[in-house]
């Protein structure tokens, strides 16, 4: 159960990271957020924030799957997460930023919940 929470968190963070990374490309940004303007500072923050999230998603992967399988799982999570922006950009770009925020929220909440329960139920 706790393991599943960690894995969900890994997916959430990786999806948020991949969505963010896809939005750093101007064409994608205009597609997904036609009303906002992309200034350089914002794009830079998006770029580094997304990379940070992608790297951080390794943590819940390892906590969820264990050290050996966790790294394998992390690569698979990144692959699957990247599919989301690819599909959404082509077929429903208006959902992209929403998915990003959902992923981020889900990732952090699940990570917090999993960490708390792991600490509580520690033998």
């Amino acid at each position: 159960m706790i393991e599943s929470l960690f894995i969900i968190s890994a997916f959430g963070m990786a999806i948020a990271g991949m969505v963010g990374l896809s939005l750093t490309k101007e064409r994608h940004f205009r597609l997904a957020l036609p009303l906002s303007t992309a200034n350089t500072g914002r794009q830079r923050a998006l770029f580094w924030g997304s990379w940070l999230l992608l790297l951080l998603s390794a943590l819940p992967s390892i906590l969820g799957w264990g050290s050996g399988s966790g790294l394998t799982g992390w690569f698979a999570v990144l692959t699957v997460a990247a599919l989301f922006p690819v599909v959404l950009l082509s077929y429903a770009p208006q959902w992209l930023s929403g998915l990003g925020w959902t992923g981020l929220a889900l990732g952090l909440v699940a990570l917090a919940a999993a960490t708390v329960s792991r600490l509580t139920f520690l033998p």
Partner: protein
Amino acid sequence: MKEGFRQSMAWLHTWAGLILGWVLFFMFVTGTAGYFDTEIDRWMQPELPVAQHDTPAVDVAAMGVSLLREEAPGAARWVIAMPIDRNDPYPRRFWQGADTESGAIAANGNERFDASSGEPFSARATGGGQHLYRMHWRLHYLPRSLSDWLIGLATMFMLVAITSGIIIHKKIFKDFFTFRPGKGQRSWLDAHNVLSVLALPFHVMITYSGLIFMAFAYMPLVIAATYGTGPEARQTMIQEVFSLPVVERSGEPASLTALGPLIDTAEERWGPGVLRHVDIHHPGDRNAYIILRASHAQGPVRSGEELHFDGVSGELIDTIPAITSAPNAAWTVLLGLHEGLFAGPVLRWLYFLSGILGTGMVGTGLVLWTVKRRQQAERRASGSHRGLVLVERLNPGMVAGLLTAVAAYFWANRLLPVEFAQREAWEVHSMFLTWFMLLILSVARPPARSWPEQFALAAVAFALLPVLNLFTSDRHLGRSLPAGDWPLAGFDLTVLGLGLVCAWVSYRLVVRQRSKLKHRRNVTTPTPGRASGAESSS
């Protein structure tokens, strides 16, 4: 060849990918199915019980030994495999070098048995998921010597195609998320890039590790130069690298030690449910030797710790760690990552999905080749493109037809009579006959028609499998779902899903074809023809 590095790499990528592309596609389809091999096994023998993971190892070992005493007297080796995880739902016993004259049923054997009764199962004969999975490296109808080299060559081509593909993909990071649908060649290239790049770690891992399985056979000079030639040299090498014991039979009989205390020792050390093999060398001999092996599916390292015992006194002789050296670790990790035996449900699905992405990569690559060449050919509008036409016409049968053929393998499993003697062989014949017939159909039809037709067939063949299951077994979705019998329910739901995906693809192809035709008619009013149609679309 002087057009620059990237262009020669593009040439290399195209031809390395195409020449063995169909073999690679076959390997990807059957290999991907292989990630659910035991689940497919179960669907193909629905009369077997649910997995028997809770049986104590001591009991399983005792049942195994008593079966082996009857079936395989005088064997050089008896092995009892425990049903500890999804890779082995039931206990298994296998033996080597048994004495058929003193009553052994066969010299070598590998059979499962029922942990509740200790008797062999009686179920329909089938190749099961194991055979389907084995095809991805063993192919079929070909002698081993040929298939090994064909597979090796195809895998090597794949490695070259991946490497050259990375080199020619200029904007690998910039175009990471780019897919522009509905734009002809551009879309196919986008799809090929996305499928290749997103799962690149998987593709590289699966290809490189695929070569490692038979690496010593593929690089024969290495052992010849370091250990000498001949089978003994090879044996020495394997013993040195993988630390196997060498024990000779003495010829002097002695009774086998009781397995219970040995198993207790192992379980104390590893905990319950980790003991995987009870491996008995020369049972009944003075020099009997017993190896207890821990699970090799606890992580990507595809080996477990071993406890070596004297088979007569029961004394612990040696403990061999799972990893003996760094090169040995790299080796077993590559094999472990390839097989993914350690993967639980989520990771297993991710493996399956990565396999599908790989299948898609090869498939889109095959299509891309024809789309590109068709455009060039239409621009030139003269000369023969017999090769192009052949590939264009074969592709639908090769790609979508193979999917239907795999479904036919499952149909045959249920439709061939249980008492039919060669049903196991005919399951596979049905698969290849279906594929062959679909190839003929594919060649006979224009590709624009053939693609949606073939996918529609695949859709029907897959989506109706749960219905077939309903009529041919009592373990249909109505039963398996409420019972939480996930291997069976999962199979039915997955093939249903695959059928729906194929139906969607077929539908999209029809829609696109219609809009293309309409577009063509609107543009080319005065002289309708192929050449003008091509201009309008470019």
